């Protein structure tokens, strides 16, 4: 199988990298073009990465307990995912939401929720990654910090911005492209100003590619989005060096390990050259991108769930060799749910075994100079770059979004993956080879299949809170948000932050923004 269409050779030789120029194409780790890594030997963070695991279930308090447990087990950051209502910017007491509250992530809809979520978490020492609608997550984190006396300037973490692809890829917020892009740009500008250590723009290629895109498609779309957002921020008059250091990339890691390692080396080089040569960035921090990884959930299987522990371990080892800044392993129960406690512990221990016992972080870019890895790095860089140019040549990126161009790519990717597994062209142990009868396939299955109910109590809490609020204050804050949305050049972030401070819910604020665009505040009003 050649997932990204790179024809493999059986053996690589020096002439396969004959055109490679060390200074120009590789450089030392921590040196332009950063192919060999963001940090040089001896620099802070060299050879180490932030160990974290995706978490979030039920109410903010319950998720807070998960955070504390993970930190107690040695996590160096938290990564919070919202339940489906939260991801859609809907409140838990919306009629469509009750069955889904807290089952696939944490329920968050107001300032108090963010306060409870981060209660007792040392936000000045650990990083908080938000897999949530970014503008609301940044506003929530900012207001919660204010409420608990933490200086927003010390906050570290990241927020996923997905203005181009989110709506087509599992994160629909029922907002038009124009509004989504505005929220993205406004919240990056806001965060750069107010939370300067926070990565306000995490380009997440994980979620777009885990529907079956190959590495070239994954990174090409990621670069198309980074370039579009960068162009628009620059057009607003922001110097590129003001925000580029706060861009990070969260990539996927499937099972073709060398391809994934070469991909990361290729994008570091591509990104550095692009920022310097096309956008004129000068600050070295603008050129050396921060790469974090979420290992592929699509590579994990419902059959023989214990095999997923092995998959997570080899992927994590590869990513450690690639020199990433942050790592989340998709856990063995991924096929069924967001991670259970047992799965969290196994994933943390996997990272720790690799970090503490293997010595993999001892040498920077240990695979540098491998004829195969260098050749594959060159080839992937070339292909990713060509695909970016091809897409941008087709037309205005915003129009491509609206025309469903990217949606079509996602559809084809999933279909291609499904076919490859069906035909056996892509071997998946336990699925199309080395299959076990269900009666024998019991190891870890009980844990993996464990479930819990939607959090009805939390829905009740929100309902009671809603009726007890200061009505006129809420109304006026929502009116301000609607007014901001309706005003072409207005910054949306002050209105969003103000509305959260004034006890508005995220569902209400999103509704006010929609209303500012002449849409029904409730996306399900017609239903």
């Amino acid at each position: 199988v050649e997932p990204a269409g790179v024809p493999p050779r059986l053996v690589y030789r020096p002439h396969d990298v004959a055109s490679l120029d060390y200074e120009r194409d590789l450089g030392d780790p921590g040196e332009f073009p950063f192919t060999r890594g963001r940090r040089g030997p001896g620099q802070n963070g060299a050879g180490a990465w932030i160990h974290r695991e995706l978490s979030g279930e039920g109410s903010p308090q319950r998720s807070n307990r998960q955070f504390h447990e993970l930190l107690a087990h040695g996590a160096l950051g938290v990564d919070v995912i919202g339940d489906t209502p939260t991801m859609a910017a809907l409140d838990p007491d919306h009629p469509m939401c009750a069955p889904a509250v807290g089952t696939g992530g944490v329920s968050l809809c107001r300032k108090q929720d963010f306060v409870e979520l981060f209660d007792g978490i040392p936000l000045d020492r650990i990083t908080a990654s938000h897999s949530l609608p970014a503008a609301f997550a940044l506003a929530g984190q900012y207001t919660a910090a204010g409420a608990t006396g933490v200086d927003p300037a010390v906050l570290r973490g990241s927020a996923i911005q997905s203005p181009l692809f989110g709506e087509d890829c599992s994160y629909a917020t029922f907002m038009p492209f124009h509004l989504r892009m505005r929220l993205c740009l406004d919240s990056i500008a806001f965060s750069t100003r107010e939370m300067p250590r926070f990565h306000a723009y995490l380009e997440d290629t994980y979620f777009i590619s885990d529907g079956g895109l190959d590495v070239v498609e994954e990174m090409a779309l990621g670069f198309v989005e980074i370039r579009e957002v960068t162009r628009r921020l620059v057009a607003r008059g922001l110097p590129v060096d003001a925000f580029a250091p706060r861009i990070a990339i969260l990539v996927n890691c499937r099972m073709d390990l060398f391809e994934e390692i070469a991909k990361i080396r290729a994008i570091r080089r591509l990104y550095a050259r692009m920022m310097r040569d096309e956008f004129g960035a000068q600050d070295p921090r603008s050129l050396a991108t921060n790469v974090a990884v979420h290992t592929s959930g699509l590579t994990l299987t419902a059959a023989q769930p214990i095999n997923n522990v092995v998959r997570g371990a080899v992927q994590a080892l590869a990513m450690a060799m690639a020199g990433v800044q942050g790592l989340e392993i998709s856990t063995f129960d991924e096929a069924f749910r967001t991670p259970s406690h047992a799965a969290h512990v196994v994933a943390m221990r996997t990272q720790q075994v690799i970090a503490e016992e293997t010595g993999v972080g001892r040498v920077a870019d240990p695979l540098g100079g491998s004829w195969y890895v260098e050749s594959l790095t060159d080839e992937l860089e070339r292909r990713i770059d060509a695909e970016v140019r091809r897409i941008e040549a087709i037309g205005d990126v915003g129009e491509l979004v609206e025309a469903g161009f990217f949606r079509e790519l996602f559809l084809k990717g999933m279909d291609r993956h499904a076919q490859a597994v069906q035909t056996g062209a892509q071997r998946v142990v336990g699925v199309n080879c080395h299959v076990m009868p269900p009666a024998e396939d019991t190891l870890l299955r009980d844990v993996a299949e464990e479930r819990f109910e939607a959090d009805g109590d939390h829905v009740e809490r929100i309902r009671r809170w809603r009726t007890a609020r200061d009505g006129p204050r809420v109304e006026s804050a929502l009116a301000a948000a609607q007014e901001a949305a309706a005003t072409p050049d207005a910054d949306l972030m002050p209105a969003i932050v103000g509305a959260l401070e004034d006890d508005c819910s995220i569902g209400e604020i999103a509704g006010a923004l929609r209303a500012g665009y002449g849409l029904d505040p409730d996306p399900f009003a017609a239903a």
Partner: protein
Amino acid sequence: MSQRGRIVVGTLGLDQHEVGAMAVAQLLMRHGFEVVYLGRFNTPARLAAVAEQEDADVVGVSVHSWELAAYTGELVDACHAVGAAVVVGGSVLTEADERALRSRGVDATFGPYARDDLIVARLDELVARTRTGAIAAPDGGDEGALAGRVVIVTGAARGLGAAYAERLVREGGAVVANDLDADELHELADDDRAIVAAPGDIADPTTAPELVAAALSRFGRLDAIIANAGALRSGTLLRIGPDDLDAVYAVHVRGTFLILQAAARHWRVEAKAGHPVAAAALTTTSSAGLFGFLGESAYSAAKAAVIALTVVAAEELARYGVTVNAIAPSARTRLTAWLGDGPANAEDPYAPAHVAPAAAWLVSAAARDVTGRVFEVGGDGLAIADGWRSAGSTALPRGASVGDVGERLRRLVAEAPAPRPILRADVPGQARDPLEDETTGRGGTLTAAP
């Protein structure tokens, strides 16, 4: 209405994971279904309303979120009320989920990496049911009697075997179909992709193990066998030769023996490994084997041998969780050409399809407690046959003379009820009496193993 079926596809509630729905839509279109794609954020009412408006056969919901459970009852009621079947598929479904969904009326469920061909076969079946109005019937949510069971059927290219295979698949099972006639077999398997064609001579000792291996490699399990292959060399005792006898025995007795043995060896391994076995074997005898058939001496003897084999196997394999029964079908097949052509419709009491539900039940999980029995199936009736037993007895003194024993035997004959006469092809206008046909009859005609 589209020929193969029209299917509404979407996700429910806030389940945002749309790529699964999109991929399923692609798959269905590739197989000739018409897809009405509704994307995300549907309610049960919307899916059903669109199904009604578009005259769809099936509503398919792709799931990646547990919230589905909250909508299941409403979804099933709304869709069945407009005559559409409900199918749910998704990578988060566990086997327990699938059972729960089906028990709540969902017509079919598919878990992670469900095989395309099984999905398509099941949808074909549901479209057929929808179009006969069966979906709206009270038992519309009933799951197939053979759901999840894998069955080897020998002699499956046509006649009874083909009817069995089709019925088993319709009931949710999967079939490894064996026959000498590879062409016919592949045609059957092409029509229905839950059927795998495995051609070969069942009398060859290598074939039966290959069939078992095919079931395991293709479907991952083996739950039942139906030994149905048969061959006919008609002729009175005076007409047929020893080769004819061997040919008939090879298929009926040796073939049945070999497939029983190969399957039983697999089940014994499973049972010894501690895996619960709920397996079934169904052999094929005939009224000829039960009662004798005029002009079919070899065939009658072979079919009687199958009965003995069956009852012994039932006793021997019970400890491994295997039931063994025999069926004596009455149907129009190449072995019963004397029956003539039937009315060629579903009303025909001698249609092979008329026998199929009985065979399906006997290899289903529902028949776990039935073993060592012989059933007569076909025409308008079902009967259970019973074996030879004493119709009278008397003492046999030591040293008795020939004359003395003769007397005793004569008395037994006089006192016993008259024996059941053997059968003869007496359908008016359809057959000749083989005894009047000794020189020109059908003797020696081989009807190849169907």
